[in-house]
């Protein structure tokens, strides 16, 4: 690994795997370190919150490790941060999945379950349509594994959308912050390219 490789801290928030995220970031050229260290979160150039578990369980784990405030500070300061799947959903205020649990609240509104008209979880590749003002997100296909989704975002974020029983938010970006409902690390060369672009922010 060259000394100029971007250093990325991947938050270990749960019991499930982060191997895919680590492998994907390495392919994108990063030097990755799994961490639960608060100091590291505040100072590391790049931080990733992977999607693991439910809205409530992920928030609970972040609270237990006292990572919520450092993460919010990072996000409010616009420091390079990638949030994947449930990590992305935590940007919102609430989720139907875990009533009563407060998210980061950077985006107003509530994450809700897909309608009964489609099979859940949504497993598979969906087409991505980014708003014109997106700098990182591109059109293409991304891999999703989710039962809950957001339908709208506030105008201070640029967003990309997909459709599954109605339009939903596939991803958001603002400066160096990227939140993906899909899994870029499992989205083949399109996803690795997205990670590479984020690392260049």
């Amino acid at each position, binding site marked *: 690994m060259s000394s100029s490789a971007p250093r990325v801290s991947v938050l270990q928030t749960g019991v499930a795997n982060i191997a*895919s995220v680590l*492998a994907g970031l390495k392919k994108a050229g990063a030097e990755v370190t799994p961490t639960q260290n608060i100091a590291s979160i505040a100072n590391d150039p790049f931080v990733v919150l992977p999607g693991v578990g439910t809205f409530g369980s992920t928030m609970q784990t972040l609270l237990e490790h006292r990572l919520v405030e450092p993460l919010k500070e990072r996000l409010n300061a616009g420091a390079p941060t990638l949030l994947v799947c449930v990590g992305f959903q935590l940007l919102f205020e609430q989720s139907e999945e875990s009533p009563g649990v407060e998210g980061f609240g950077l985006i107003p509104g509530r994450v809700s379950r897909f309608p009964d008209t489609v099979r859940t*979880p949504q*497993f598979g*590749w969906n087409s991505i349509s980014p708003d014109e003002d997106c700098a990182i997100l591109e059109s293409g296909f991304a891999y999703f594994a989710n*039962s809950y989704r957001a339908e709208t975002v506030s105008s201070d974020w640029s967003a990309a959308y997909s459709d*599954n029983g109605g339009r939903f938010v596939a991803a958001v970006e603002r400066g160096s912050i990227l939140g993906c409902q899909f899994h870029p690390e*499992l989205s083949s060369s399109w996803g690795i390219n997205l990670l590479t672009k984020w690392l260049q922010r």
Partner: protein
Amino acid sequence: MLTARIIPCLDVRDGRVVKGVRFQGLRDAGCPEELAETYEAQGADELVFLDVSATPEGRGTHRHTIQKIRDRLSLPLTTGGGVRAVEDAGSLLEAGADKISVNTAAVDQPSILSDIAERFGSQCCILALDAAERSSPVEGASAWEVVVRSGKVRTGIDAVTWAKEAVERGAGEILLTSWDRDGTRSGYDLELLRAVCSAIKVPVIASGGADTPAHMVEALEAGADAVLAASIFHDGDYTVAGLKEELATLGVRVRK
């Protein structure tokens, strides 16, 4: 809109990919991580690696195989075969799998499904359901029974009822294999697919019997969200890219 998923399936024994007919007569079909890379380059949407090792030593190598595949693969990776306890699932997830499929162990002890779903989420918990046509009809039951231990044991359990129970217990997807069709290249069992897909709300992967793009169209029309195939890819009859081209001309929405 979601695209139809095309999933090459690779059976792994002692660290090598093998393929047989009706789970028997296994022959060598290549190196797992090299095949994974090839299939990704061809446009595979997801890969399934099932451990069919007969010995504990062979099973011990599977975790290492998954690690090697993960290092090279940027696609969703499902693995199973020999998963007996929630700890086995955790170990394979940690090695780099995204989903764990459970077959015989779930029939022996259905609570393993809820254990995996509660600990790692339903999106990690896949029921591999091998179904065979009953030799004689049973009143009040579907035409298929669950078979386990690589098809060696017929359980008498109703396949459709079992699919419903597995979903209630937390399975997030069903990998539905027709034992009668596996490796025969005579087409998927469409009646079985229709029966299971209409009974549950989670995605279903059709498996067993694929030979032509037309077979896959039939399976998708019968309600499957994804089609799995092994022989047609390993034998070199189709590349995934070539298959997707043909599916697209037949009106199937695929990722290209």
